[in-house]
């Protein structure tokens, strides 16, 4: 076995490894191994191994760049078209989540509704996940925030002069137990709303991973 032939094969496999740099590492390792075994078997079948024989053999294997192109997936006509679509929908998906959570706070009702529309036209979630995003919580954070504003405006205290008495503090709050229950409801609504958005955000990432594989 001549060393110059060995070096040729080594160089070839190194080039292949470099060309495959953007492939998942498990797939790259597997491909390089399979091709190196193929070369070894082809060399074993040669009657007398000259440098020219090995060069011919490597020529038949093909340019490492071609092998890497094949490994990267379907033809060049379809690949560039698919990528921008995915990116654009990715940005819209993020916008949907932000609007679902905060849209109603910025522009009451309408901001949230735009989020719902973006959620339903997106392909990043299943129908069940979309339903969850719509129903938990309607309005997003606008609902608990609105309740909070309502509660504080109702429980404002103001001074009112009452005849025959000293200055008297008048409060229109529903009482301290009502206040506690109210704030628990507000907190639960806010937590449910945030949890749903976080869940949808994580599903979006995972669904995209599944699609990419």
């Amino acid at each position, binding site marked *: 076995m001549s060393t110059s032939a060995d070096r040729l094969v080594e160089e070839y496999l190194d080039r292949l490894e470099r060309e495959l740099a953007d492939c998942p590492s498990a797939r790259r390792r597997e491909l390089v191994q399979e091709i190196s*075994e*193929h070369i070894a*078997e082809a060399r074993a079948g040669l009657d007398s191994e000259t440098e020219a024989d090995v060069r011919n053999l490597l020529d038949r294997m093909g340019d490492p760049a071609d*092998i890497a192109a094949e490994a990267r*997936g379907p033809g060049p006509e379809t690949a560039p078209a698919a990528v921008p679509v995915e990116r654009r929908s990715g940005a819209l998906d993020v916008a949907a989540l932000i609007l679902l959570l905060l849209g109603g706070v910025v522009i009451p009702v309408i901001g949230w509704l735009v989020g719902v529309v973006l959620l339903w036209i997106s392909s990043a979630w299943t129908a069940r996940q979309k339903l969850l995003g719509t129903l938990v919580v309607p309005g997003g954070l606008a609902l608990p925030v609105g309740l909070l504003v309502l509660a504080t405006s109702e429980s404002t205290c103001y001074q009112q002069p009452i005849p025959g008495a000293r200055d008297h503090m008048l409060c229109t709050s529903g009482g301290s137990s009502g206040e506690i229950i109210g704030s628990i409801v507000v907190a639960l609504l806010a937590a449910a709303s945030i949890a749903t958005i976080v869940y949808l955000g994580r599903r979006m990432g995972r669904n995209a991973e599944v699609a990419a594989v």
Partner: protein
Amino acid sequence: MVATQDALLAQMRRGTLQYCVLSLLADEERYGFDLVRGLAEMDGMVTSEGTIYPLLSRLRRDGLVESNWQESPSGPPRRYYRLTERGRSALDGFRLEWRRFRDAVDHFVERTESK
């Protein structure tokens, strides 16, 4: 040959090669080297033998072929490929479409040549 015709040939090869691989696996399981040599025997089917390996890997991920490792009489174990049910029905479907397509093209191309 004109450059565009070269590109066309490469496209046709790319589109049909996977079905030639499935055909080679229709009756018997084969390992990579054996499969590649089987394809290369036909002139004009494979220009770079190395590209068969990423193709096999994709066919496996798509569930059209499956593989298992077997000891070889010489050297390291070999990964043998065989057709799955899904691969078989994909091949049957292609065979039908291909015959129709081939006959249609022949109908026009052969007629003008024989004249």
